[in-house]
């Protein structure tokens, strides 16, 4: 599902070159649940951004869902992103739309036939246990609920790959556990999951394969 080969990402800061990722190589098979762990600034977010072509690597090869990401033309990027669900630390819900509309927005943007939208939105909301809050606005939800709504939005287009960038970062322990349980449930249904987190303890808790990034280098691949 994911393949990185000798990937470098170097940023320029004046005349200095700062490597955000240095010679990173790994593979994630279809149906795997992988934790990408490392302290803040280790390069986790940069790595995820390479996967959904928000950034281009300075060097190396990136393959996602059978696509050579670097060679994609501008008009091909949406095709790649349709195969990826993304959730961030902040839920990034649209404040002026209800939970239902936030989730339905994805399907409407992608031109899904109208008759399919409602059942798929409710199916997705049910999967994250939020169907009772369909008509609530984001401001009326707890942070945990907002993150669940974001998960529903990421899943509604049924992507084969889910990228989660610190999805529990803003949550207390109970809410964070709920989200992790949901991620595991999503994985059990066949979605490949790559979870980025700064909490190394999470890796132990999930007992899944863990990649550890430090200062842009992949220092450990275990599990």
């Amino acid at each position: 599902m994911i393949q990185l080969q000798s990937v470098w990402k170097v940023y320029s800061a004046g005349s200095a070159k700062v490597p955000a990722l240095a010679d990173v190589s790994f593979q994630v098979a279809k149906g795997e649940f992988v934790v990408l762990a490392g302290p803040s600034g280790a390069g986790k977010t940069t790595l995820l951004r390479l996967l959904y072509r928000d950034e281009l690597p300075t060097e190396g090869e990136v393959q996602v869902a059978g696509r050579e990401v670097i060679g994609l033309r501008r008009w091909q990027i949406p095709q790649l992103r349709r195969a990826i669900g993304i959730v961030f630390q902040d839920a990034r819900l649209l404040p002026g739309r209800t939970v239902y509309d936030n989730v339905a927005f994805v399907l409407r943007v992608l031109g899904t036939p109208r008759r399919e939208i409602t059942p798929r939105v409710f199916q997705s909301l049910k999967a994250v246990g939020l169907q009772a809050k369909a008509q609530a606005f984001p401001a009326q939800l707890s942070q945990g609920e907002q993150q669940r709504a974001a998960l529903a939005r990421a899943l509604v287009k049924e992507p084969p790959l889910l990228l989660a960038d610190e999805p529990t970062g803003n949550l207390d322990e109970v809410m964070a556990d709920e989200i992790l349980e949901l991620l595991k449930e999503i994985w059990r249904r066949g979605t490949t999951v790559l979870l980025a987190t700064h909490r190394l303890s999470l890796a132990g808790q999930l007992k899944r394969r863990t990649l550890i990034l430090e200062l842009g280098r992949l220092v450990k691949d275990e599990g």
Partner: protein
Amino acid sequence: MSLLGFVLSEAGRDLRRAGRVGVSAILLITLSLGALGVFWLLSLNLGRAVVQWRERLRVVIYLKNEPTPGAVDGLLKKVESVEGVQRLRYIGKAEALQTLKRQLGAQASLVDQLPTNPLPASMEVTPAAEAATPEGTRALIQRLSAFPEVEEIQGGTEWVERVAQWRRLLDGVGLGVGALLALAAILAVTTAITLALDARREEMEIMRLVGATERVIRLPLLIQGMAQGFLGAAVALGGLYAAYRLTLPGVEPLISLTLGLPRVAFFSWPEMALLLGGGGLLGAVGGLLAKGRSAG
């Protein structure tokens, strides 16, 4: 179909959110197309007058002596064969006197007191289209002057052409003023849409992340601009029509007297469609410019 519905509903949403900036964009388009419309209407009617005057243009040949009845046909044939003559009518001395009497009306008896008929026989020439220009008429008069029977020739198009020149000047001024206002309108639409763009930056980011194509992301902006332009043009057209109907009773007799037009015309359906389309185009350009900024 559902994608089109989404694009249209997003455009409508943006239009409602545009608020005062959106309204001022529409007003500027109204103003620019209204000003352009006023000049266009004036030019349109002046143009009709010029065409009418050109059609009515006549060159009159006054003859030295009235030809004998048997010689009239021969003379007419000779003149008819001259290049630039479309139609020809002979007016004998007696007919000219009758016409004068009719024109004098109540004072017609004055003519009866004349010892002899002083009016010359004449020929009224309708120039062909190619001769109905100042140069064409001058050349025609020169050719007609060559006949020995001719005493004097009257007629010319200089004054008609002067009016035509005024019309061209009016067109130029109208286009200049319209272009300046159109530029302001485009900038206003661009500003309105750039603000709408800022308001939906989050939405656009999410659209990109979930795999929406750029066309789906940007099309609502273009439609919003076009809708603003179209609305502005419709208001301008409505205003122009209202002004036309209100001023018509006072202006029409004056126009009839000075320009000789029986009625003042408003835009035809295709011209109205062109004005509305022009508004849509102005708005679309504004929308595209806003797109350019956001794409940077």
